[in-house]
């Protein structure tokens, strides 16, 4: 049997090729573009499945699960800079997840973007994104990963700004790109530093890669920690972690399938994936290369843990006070990404990736459901102007509810429960502090609460929207009231809903298939593991919190649904100040505007001033000085040199004229003078001879 590994590169290459072809199509060749994109994505999914089965077979036969292909890229002196791709359980899982979600979103988009004139371009970017994301997943080189990573970023930029005529969309796209680029600069620096210290950027290279012992052993403690934190900067930017999360809510300006695919399921999870990929570096104690739990967590992991926990609780709190259906989900995504980071920090790759996978499905489901709702309400996104949609859109409601319960972590049935529980359990066992655990738990309560609030607003009660409202932004023709979306949109919802429920069963404490798979071991069934004391406690606690959140949400919002769109929120009536602060995302944007954006603008103005006034000024001063000298010279010439010469000449002339008076041409006068002189001479001589 031919191995899948040498042709693995086709998985990202197919969508990229499709994107290239679509770019050459004309605007109206929409059907062809969709076919190309979906066909390429389907082929990628098939190849991904083959790759996955290949890895699984290796796992079951207890063979080595890591396979790599490296190749020369460019030559620096006598050494080659090499890139490569890899297939291991992590990338196999991610391949399947990314290509499956992408395919579903592509399908969904054919319905959602039906009325958009630029659908061809949309599929071009979407396919390019999928290719780049798959590239991130299989890259065996930090450089190649960074390459695809930035490509992912730029497609995200284009897709956020897809409705470029809207100034807010264009601004949001720019903001997303720049904020993530700030993080990427850290990643770039970390990458360069890593290359300097280890001499390679290949993750695995038969013992010589930078994630392998030989290279890690060469790092000093400080270098390892700094590089790891710098790389985490990139991950934090991409995954919307706390100080750099501001771009993600604004990114909701993009079409909803984009939000589902890029800003919920895949791209934002790339940061988490990156941390998982370089986990050996993150967790290494370079001195003795021990990974044992006896050592305290490394600095990098501590940073990841704290940032993750803070993000989880802050974003969840902000989500409580949002009114835009997509912004609620955006903050929810940030919060969940925080959980993933927390999981990576306290529990390792398995915990974080488990939540990444389950979240990808249920959050994609929620976003697509939200898209279906928006589509059904003719572009309306404000939950206060929805309501009662459960009757109009039954399929959407059912699947959305499944997604919502998965996100809340409804016990035992839904996938979110198992993955979130794994994180909380790991946080509970963390050796340094219990605070991340309590932050996470509080976040779980808030999650259940804000999702209940949203669902009650959207689906319960009566429809509060204006029926004659024309479409905003999305281009759907106005219709009479909310309506169910076409099958091409609901079908992906149903598929995703199934995954949102079932995926959790792959990683329950009783049957840790996922965990074993990632570690390359066959899984076994231990029912008894469920009953272990610590685990049971955590499960009980999180279940209680979930029920409390659901109940509180229902009691506040579901019992008496708001009657009209302008009715103030229940919480707003109670604590208006807190609610406003939360609604504005703790004013982080305003804070950045004051502390970063405006000083930067001032610095730019200063730099421009320097350019115009100082540097150019110096040149102008030199020029002016030269001109001044020239003028002075002209003046000296005219007034001093020339005038002096003239005056001298005149003096000589006048002297001549005076002397000329003596020579008047009259002989007698000469003689008289001569005689006089003679007489004087005679007198003088006589006078002298006297004595």
């Amino acid at each position: 049997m031919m191995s899948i590994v040498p042709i693995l590169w086709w998985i990202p290459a197919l969508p990229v090729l499709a994107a290239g072809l679509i770019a050459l199509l004309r605007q109206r060749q929409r059907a062809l573009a969709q076919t190309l994109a979906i066909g390429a994505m389907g082929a990628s999914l098939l190849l991904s499945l083959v790759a996955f089965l290949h890895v699984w077979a290796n796992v079951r036969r207890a063979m080595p699960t890591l396979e790599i292909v490296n190749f020369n890229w460019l030559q620096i002196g006598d050494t080659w800079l090499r890139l490569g791709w890899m297939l291991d359980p992590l990338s196999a899982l991610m391949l399947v997840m990314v290509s499956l979600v992408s395919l579903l979103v592509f399908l969904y988009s054919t319905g959602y973007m039906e009325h958009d004139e630029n659908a061809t371009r949309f599929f071009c970017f979407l396919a390019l994104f999928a290719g780049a994301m798959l590239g991130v997943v299989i890259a065996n080189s930090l450089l190649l990963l960074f390459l695809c990573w930035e490509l992912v970023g730029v497609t995200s930029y284009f897709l956020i700004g897809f409705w470029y005529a809207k100034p807010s969309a264009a601004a949001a796209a720019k903001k997303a790109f720049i904020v993530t680029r700030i993080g990427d600069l850290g990643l770039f620096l970390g990458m360069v530093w890593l290359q300097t210290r280890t001499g390679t950027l290949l993750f695995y290279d038969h013992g010589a890669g930078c994630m392998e012992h030989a290279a890690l052993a060469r790092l000093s403690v400080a270098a390892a920690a700094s590089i790891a934190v710098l790389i985490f900067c990139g991950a934090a930017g991409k995954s919307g972690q706390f100080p750099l999360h501001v771009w993600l809510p604004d990114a909701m300006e993009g079409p909803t399938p984009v939000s589902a695919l890029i800003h919920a399921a895949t791209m934002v999870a790339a940061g988490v994936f990156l941390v998982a990929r370089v986990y050996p570096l993150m967790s290494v104690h370079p001195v003795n290369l021990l990974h044992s739990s006896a050592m305290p967590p490394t600095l990098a992991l501590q940073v990841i843990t704290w940032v993750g926990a803070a993000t989880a609780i802050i974003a969840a709190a902000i989500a409580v006070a949002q009114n835009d259906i997509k912004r609620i989900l955006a903050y929810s995504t940030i919060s969940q990404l925080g959980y993933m980071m927390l999981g990576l920090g306290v529990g390792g790759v398995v915990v974080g990736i488990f939540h990444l996978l389950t979240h990808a499905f249920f959050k994609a489901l929620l976003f697509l459901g939200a898209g279906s709702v928006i589509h059904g309400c003719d572009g309306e996104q404000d939950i206060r102007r929805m309501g009662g949609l459960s009757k109009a859109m039954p399929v959407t409601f059912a699947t959305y509810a499944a997604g919502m319960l998965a996100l809340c972590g409804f016990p035992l049935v839904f996938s979110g429960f198992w993955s979130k529980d794994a994180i909380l359990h790991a946080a509970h066992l963390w050796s340094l502090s219990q605070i991340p655990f309590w932050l996470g738990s509080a976040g779980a309560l808030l999650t259940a609460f804000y999702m209940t609030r949203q669902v009650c607003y959207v689906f319960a009660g009566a429809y509060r929207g204006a029926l004659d409202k024309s479409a905003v932004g999305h281009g759907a023709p106005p219709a009479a009231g909310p309506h169910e979306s076409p099958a091409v949109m609901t079908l992906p919802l149903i598929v995703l809903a199934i995954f949102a429920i079932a995926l959790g069963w792959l990683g329950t404490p009783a049957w840790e298939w996922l965990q074993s798979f990632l570690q390359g071991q066959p899984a076994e069934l231990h029912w008894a593991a469920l009953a272990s004391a610590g685990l049971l406690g955590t499960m009980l606690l999180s279940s209680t919190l979930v029920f409390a959140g659901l109940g509180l949400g229902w009691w506040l919002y579901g019992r008496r649904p708001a009657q009209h769109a302008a009715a103030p929120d229940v919480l707003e009536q109670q604590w208006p100040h807190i609610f406003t602060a939360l609604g504005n995302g703790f004013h982080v944007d305003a804070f950045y505007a004051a502390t970063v954006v405006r000083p930067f603008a001032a610095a730019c103005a200063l730099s421009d001033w320097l350019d115009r006034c100082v540097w150019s000024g110096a040149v102008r001063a030199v020029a002016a000085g030269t001109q001044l000298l020239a003028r002075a010279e002209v003046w000296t010439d005219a007034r001093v040199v020339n005038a002096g010469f003239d005056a001298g000449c005149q003096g000589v002339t006048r002297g001549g004229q005076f002397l000329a008076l003596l020579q008047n041409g009259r002989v007698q006068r000469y003689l008289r003078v001569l005689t006089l002189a003679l007489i004087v001479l005679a007198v003088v001589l006589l006078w002298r001879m006297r004595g």
Partner: protein
Amino acid sequence: MNPLTGYLLLAALLFSIGLAGVLTRRSAILMLVGMELMLNAANLNLIAFWRYGPNPAAMTGVLFALFSIGVAAAEAAVGLGLLVAVARRVRTTDVDQMDAMRG
């Protein structure tokens, strides 16, 4: 009183008359006449100093005088010639008019 003194006084008087003529007369011809007078005053002196000098036997004074008279004659001839040429050009003999050499 030595007879020489008388000759010398006469010669001095003659010279003074000649000089005054040269310096004051407007006419170029009269200036020449003045000059001749001064020359002859000098000749008179030469003769007088010879006659009453320490060695009258030698004929030095006479020779000087004769020579001087010859020179005076030549000078008068040249001077008059020049004068005629100038007078032809400026149509006058008034020396005050002959100032073409002024600066």
